[in-house]
């Protein structure tokens, strides 16, 4: 197997599905232009022509309805937003139209629409370029929601999403685009609705969402050095959720930290916490903890960004507190390797 980065995995999933099925196409603001959505659309227009890979006016609302219309009349659109923040202009179409079209036609129809939304911390992105908003979409019945963490999952889950006959929103954290691992070359589906244990452990379960699984791994390494065994569960699909995997893990460890890259209040971490508390009642050794953004709009200045965003250190400190451990000296750890790696302008 060869190594592929997350961005390449996304591109390969789209490219292979476009090859396999003429009805698949990809579009959105800037999709075929120079920056290629972090490289994820590289070469697609060259390969499939401007009818199947194209740019649009800055009209997110109309272009979302466009995707719905194309989907219900036989095509399989992939609509890309270079920031979930801009997808807010599509809220009406996604929530009032896309989510309930199948249901209000009695379940007879299909809406094979994929919406890719880039999320994640950049570099002084500020309040309008940094949101995640998982829960605003997981809250809406009729939408599937995925957030793959690894390149292999990204390829398999996006492939499954493209083949799915229902609307799927795919959240991609921009820092993940660089992650590399072995990814099979042939097309494959990683089924939606099935979570994954990224790291087995026995003292505490970390349920990580998207990027926070990367932070969780770092935290787990640090904690392992002092003998704490961390299990990391990546739900991967937020809707439909693999409840069993999460609940069984927490039932085993008796402790749960939910690490989200979104606001905590009314976030998807609240849903996970509620779920775990309901299903593991009496089996928890300590209260479930939620980790996420500070409950403020995202500040631009780096020093406040570092306070705003949770990271491996936040996780370590929380686990230490749950286990009643003294805080370790973490001075020699590097918690900001990605922050440093990313450097403007965009």
């Amino acid at each position, binding site marked *: 197997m060869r190594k592929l980065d997350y961005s390449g995995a996304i591109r390969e999933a789209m490219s292979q599905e476009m090859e396999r099925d003429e009805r698949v196409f990809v579009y959105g603001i800037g999709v075929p232009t120079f920056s290629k959505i972090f490289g994820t659309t590289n070469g697609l227009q060259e390969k499939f022509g401007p009818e199947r890979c194209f740019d649009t006016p800055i009209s997110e609302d109309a272009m979302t309805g466009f995707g719905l219309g194309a989907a219900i009349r036989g095509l399989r659109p992939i609509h890309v937003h270079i920031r979930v923040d801009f997808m807010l202009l599509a809220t009406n179409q996604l929530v009032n139209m896309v989510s309930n079209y199948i249901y209000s*036609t009695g*379940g007879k129809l299909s809406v094979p629409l994929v919406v890719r939304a880039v999320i994640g911390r950049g570099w002084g992105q500020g309040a309008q370029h940094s949101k995640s908003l998982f829960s605003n979409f997981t809250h809406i019945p009729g939408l599937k929601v995925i957030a793959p963490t690894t390149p292999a999952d990204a390829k398999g889950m996006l492939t499954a999403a493209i083949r799915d006959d229902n609307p799927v929103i795919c959240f991609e954290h921009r820092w993940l685009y660089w992650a590399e691992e072995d990814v099979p070359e042939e097309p494959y589906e990683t089924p939606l609705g099935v979570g994954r244990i990224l790291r087995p452990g026995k003292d505490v379960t970390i349920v990580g969402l998207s990027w926070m699984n990367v932070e969780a791994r770092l935290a787990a390494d640090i904690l392992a050095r002092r003998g704490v065994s961390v299990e990391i569960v990546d739900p991967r699909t937020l809707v439909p959720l693999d409840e069993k995997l999460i609940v069984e893990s927490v039932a085993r460890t008796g402790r749960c930290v939910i690490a989200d890259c979104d606001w905590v209040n009314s976030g998807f971490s609240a849903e996970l916490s509620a779920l775990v508390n309901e299903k593991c009642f009496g089996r928890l050794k300590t209260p479930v903890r939620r980790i996420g953004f500070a409950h403020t709009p995202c500040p631009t200045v780096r020093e406040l960004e570092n306070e705003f965003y949770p990271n491996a250190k936040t996780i370590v400190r929380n686990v230490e507190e749950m286990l009643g451990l003294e805080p370790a000296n973490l001075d020699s750890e590097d918690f900001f390797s990605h922050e440093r790696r990313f450097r403007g302008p965009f």
Partner: protein
Amino acid sequence: MSLPLTTVGSSLFLDETQKAKKYLMSLVSEGVSQAVSTGLYKSLFLARRSEEYIVKHYPENQMRSPMHMSMGQEFVSVGVCSALEGKGDIFASYRSHAAFLAQTHDTDRFFAELYGRMSGTGEGKGGSMHLAAPDSGHLLSSGVVATQIPVAIGAAFANARLRTGRTAVAFFGDGATDAGVFWESVNAASLFRLPVMFVCEDNGYAVDTPRAARQTFESLTEAVRPFGCDVYEDDSGDVESVYLLARRAAETARSKRRPAFLNIKCCRFLEHVGTGEDWHWGYRDKEATVRDWIARDAVITQRRRLLALGVAEQEIVALEGEVESIVRRSVERAVAAAIPGPERLYAGVFHAKA
């Protein structure tokens, strides 16, 4: 069952057959075959009678959902859908009874949906505002103003790509042209060279807010023109005029691969939502509305035209009787049909592969 509204309209030509004939013939610029004229009347009558049945049965409180009646405006969707001869893909607003029936002629599924029955278009889950019979080219109706418009351009794109030969049509009210998404859609359709038809059922009001309280265009049609559409306007209130216009527009759109915008003036006879009249609201003048529109009711006009064309009255009566019994039977079937059981609640949130 007899309809007060219909009676008002019919009075116009009652004692002036010659004048009426001349007037009727002058309404259209080109001829259409008698078969088409008859077909148009049948469609109009089907929509009208169906809604008259709604008016009649609504107070029984068995169709338990808001109804936005097409009555008075049927000629728009009947004209357009007929012009497309079944090859239209229709996207409509909540005011979609006429569009649905003009496109599908399917009173069975229509009434079943209004009554909330398993045999309805959406097994009762959709209701009046969410009618869809994609197998018959009625793709959706939607209760949020203007939301259906961009969906139509996506369908037009798919139709072009898949060479289905179908023409996507968005029906919407004048109020929908307040919304930014309308302008985005017109621009995108033009940019992508999509032969979609934007049909504004321009009844002059959004609920009770008149156009002048919402827009400043001297002419909406002229405002749309620079967006790269072929634009058309019609204030005839006549189904054949709309039919011919729509045919021309559809042909031009297909041959030039350009969207068409049709602004068709019309009048909603009943209240915005519900099955009653609304003169007591006071936002429009009854006398003027009756004079300009209700007295020129397109259904009656078309009936008169058939007579003027030499169709025997008995033939018309027979056709009406046929339609009436179709409608009556559909209502009866709907009333008798199965109500979805509680187990249906969770069914169909996601598509189940067949």
